[in-house]
């Protein structure tokens, strides 16, 4: 993956295999973002609802605050859906034999980081990924959906590393 910096945007030049992974992640995210929360699998519902207080002390009387968090998280779901659909349109020109240029506005890099993290966390939640899974040699895992999920999580981690590099190069942090 190579990066081209333009005045207002960033281009990621993706190998076809990288482009396929990113396309797959966006497609899956689009589905999760667009599906009403009550129709999602239980683990995805929990992810989108979030938790305001320490799960080991769930008795804090913060019902209205918890509802407020849940509503805000649903707003993120909706906003991120719009951006994901916008980015998915770029893949209409994708050919599996050629390098693919994925271009985003500079101000969207931070949002792309959040969106790719949604996918990593949703996969982890769906497949109960734990610390030891993250250090496993994925090549030796049996062929199952969890093994594929771990490869996608790893790919998105690689992509996030590049996004962080872009952000840290651009910002005065």
């Amino acid at each position, binding site marked *: 993956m190579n990066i081209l910096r333009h005045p207002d945007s960033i281009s990621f030049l993706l190998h076809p295999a990288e482009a396929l992974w990113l396309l797959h992640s966006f497609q899956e995210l689009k589905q999760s973002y667009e599906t009403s929360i009550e129709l999602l699998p239980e683990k995805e519902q929990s992810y989108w609802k979030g938790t305001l207080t*320490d799960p080991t*002390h769930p008795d804090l009387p913060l019902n209205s605050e918890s509802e407020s968090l849940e509503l*805000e998280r649903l707003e993120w779901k909706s906003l991120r859906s719009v951006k994901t659909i916008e980015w998915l349109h770029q893949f209409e020109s994708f050919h599996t034999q050629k390098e693919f240029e994925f271009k985003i506005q500079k101000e969207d890099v931070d949002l792309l980081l959040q969106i790719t993290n*949604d996918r990593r*966390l949703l996969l982890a939640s769906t497949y109960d990924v734990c*610390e030891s899974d993250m250090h496993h040699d994925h090549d030796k895992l049996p062929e199952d959906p969890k093994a594929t999920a771990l490869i996608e999580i790893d790919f998105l981690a690689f992509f996030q590393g590049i996004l962080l590099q872009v952000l840290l190069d651009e910002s005065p*942090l």
Partner: protein
Amino acid sequence: MTDLKIRSATVTTPDVETQVSIELDHGWSVVVWNDPINLMDYVVYVFQKVLHMNKSQATKHMMEVHQHGKSLVAHENKEKAEHLVHQLQAYGLKATLQAL
């Protein structure tokens, strides 16, 4: 053990203590919990962005989360603490609110 005996001799229960703290708004903690997915560099970036920490502070708190399971990253009034929890969760960090 000694501490537990003293506590059991008092009338105040932890629930009442929490309720009093909430009523008086003595302050609220924002706690970030460890998880196996978020990248270390990502957590450092989010702490810098949301909590306005410098890189050294952000790295210290990230390591505390990683090694001890959690880190108290802010102590604010309720409104501000709640806002920070929302912002940290927007990035996918496991952040919670705790009454002092």
